[in-house]
């Protein structure tokens, strides 16, 4: 049977991806350019008995999401730049309490109100380090409508599997563009649910490391009583200031991602093997880059594209490998060098990393990238 197809917007695809992943709770606050996610969820969730709530502000939205997730519901919020700044407090809370949730952040120009309808990729560092304190981060950066759907499903899977907040961050162009999508059939993409406790309620501890680095999470209302706090905590969930416990718990929370990088990281290499110049790009910028690479190849220039699909954790090891055999990297991005700095940070100076930076609300066009490839080759 032919697959169901559609011609939909990236933001709509994110919402349908969330529903495919089993999302049953959405709390949000209106903000351009992400509002379509909320609108689709407000239509679709009640049809399947799920819950949609428009909260009084961005902090309230992520708070309600974490609360709902603690009852076992897969939960989502969607926002953009200023909203992401506001949500950071509770994103940190979800990190330390290890509550799965997904945050869709459609990237617009910043800082502050910036350019609400202009595209950007300048929230990359905010997704990594926006909330205070040490914490792990997973951030996915899809480049097409189809990929938004699939990566949103994966975002839920990673959130559930590793008990943590996960960001999915299309830039505004990807969020608002319309493309053909083939909707995966039920069962076609894996859908992962959090591990629930196998022990009876009286033995349950919400951070019981005898079950590994990702302890099972019971749901409030399912017969298990437990305590959750944003304070540094012990295995039983109660606060502690014991140095050894706090250190070990914080390290475990980082290890959930660090020890599973290969499971989480995803990228695409296009004509990289023999390339002299490798473009590192994500989102809509990677589409311009692919076009530029094809044009360069027609001119006999050996250009390749390293397209990030997961931005955090960053594929440092692979880029270090590549850096040993290329003349240069180019990082076209809609920010003033956030991606560039990360690439430089992992290649040990093996090659120059040229930047093409736009924060003017304009996409990086293929011509600019091609011109830079010619210079670098």
């Amino acid at each position, binding site marked *: 049977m032919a697959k169901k197809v559609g011609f939909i917007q990236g933001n709509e695809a994110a919402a349908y991806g969330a529903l495919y992943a089993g999302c049953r709770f959405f709390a949000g606050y209106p903000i351009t350019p992400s509002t379509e996610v909320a609108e689709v969820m407000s239509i679709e969730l009640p049809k399947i008995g799920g819950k949609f709530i428009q909260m009084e502000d961005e902090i309230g939205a992520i708070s309600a999401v974490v609360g*709902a997730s603690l*009852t076992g519901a897969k939960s989502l919020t969607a926002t953009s730049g200023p909203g992401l700044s506001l949500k950071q407090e509770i994103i940190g809370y979800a990190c330390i309490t290890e509550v799965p949730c997904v945050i869709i952040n459609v990237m617009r120009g910043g800082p502050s109100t910036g350019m609400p309808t202009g595209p950007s990729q300048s929230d990359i560092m905010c997704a990594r380090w926006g909330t205070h304190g040490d914490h792990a981060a997973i951030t996915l950066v899809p480049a097409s409508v189809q990929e938004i759907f699939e990566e949103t499903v994966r975002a839920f899977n990673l959130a559930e599997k590793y008990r943590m907040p996960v960001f999915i961050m299309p830039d505004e162009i990807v969020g608002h563009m319309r493309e053909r999508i083939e909707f995966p059939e039920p069962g076609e993409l894996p859908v992962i649910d959090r591990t629930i406790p196998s022990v009876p309620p009286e033995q349950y501890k919400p951070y019981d490391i005898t079950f590994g680095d990702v302890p099972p999470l019971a749901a409030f209302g399912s017969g298990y*009583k437990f305590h*959750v706090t944003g304070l540094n905590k012990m295995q039983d969930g109660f606060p502690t200031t014991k140095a050894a416990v706090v250190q070990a718990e914080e390290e475990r929370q980082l290890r959930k991602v660090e020890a599973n990088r290969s499971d989480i990281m995803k990228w695409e290499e296009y004509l990289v093997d023999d390339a002299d110049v490798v473009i590192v790009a994500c989102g809509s910028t990677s589409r311009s880059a692919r076009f530029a690479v094809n044009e360069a190849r027609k001119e006999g220039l050996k250009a390749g594209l390293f397209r990030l699909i997961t931005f955090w954790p960053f594929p440092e090891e692979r880029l270090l490998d590549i850096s040993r055999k290329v003349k240069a990297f180019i990082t076209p991005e809609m920010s003033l060098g956030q991606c560039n700095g990360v690439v430089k940070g992992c290649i040990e100076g093996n090659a120059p990393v040229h930047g093409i930076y736009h924060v003017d609300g304009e996409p990086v066009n293929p011509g600019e990238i091609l011109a830079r490839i010619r210079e670098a080759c």
Partner: protein
Amino acid sequence: MAFDYDKYIRPGKLPHIWCPGCGHGIVMKGLIRAIDALGLKKEQTCIVSGIGCASRLPGYMDCCTLHTAHGRAAAFATGIKMARPEMTVICVGGDGDGVAIGGNHFIHACRRNIDITYVMMNNHIYGMTGGQFSPATPTGAKASTTPYGNPDPPFDIAKLAIGSGASFVARGTAFHAIQIDKLIVEAVRHKGFSVVEILDDCPTTYGRRNRFKSVVEMMNHLKEISVPIKAAAKMSPEQLQGKVITGVLYKEDKPEYCEQYQKVIERAQSGAK
């Protein structure tokens, strides 16, 4: 036979952090008696707080307990109640947590009339951080950040709740201990957002800066200023000057939020709009 509080307190989690003379423990005992009187199942009862001395209460309670971030209790509780309407959800916390940093969540929870009970312990001060003035600190009072007297006018928390749409609003005091559980019982039984403000004392950071010589004096002050609502009805505005009215101040039957959302689900599933 004496009431068995231990049944509701987590083993090994006492002593609590509260100072000698603090009223929060009196409120917690009232809450425990209320939960017992209501016959609530501990695993179906969720107690949610923000940050501050009063917000440490959930950690001592043998229920589903959530100690959230500063001011966010009502928003977290909204998510819990929406996702699991069958649970009894009770927010606890202080005045600064509830109506300063959490003011927006509080008034909107009132407006939605979601079936959550909010027990707000109003000791007129930020105690945990050492006694800074809160939006409930009386004008003129001394706090660590109002060394010359508080220039701010305070919120009337109960009036704020009524004005914001809460359908049940009551006020008690830590002095009137045996009234606390009765107010909480009625609040939890009420379908809709219910607020129980308990006037409380902080001898450590408020009392000593404001010429209260002892905890007893602070407790007596709570007794002296409070007037039950029935008695207040017979008093003139002059007689009520400086007094605080206690009891059930407001009660209204109106649509509850989760029930309203259930109608949304029914409309969506029937294909109507």
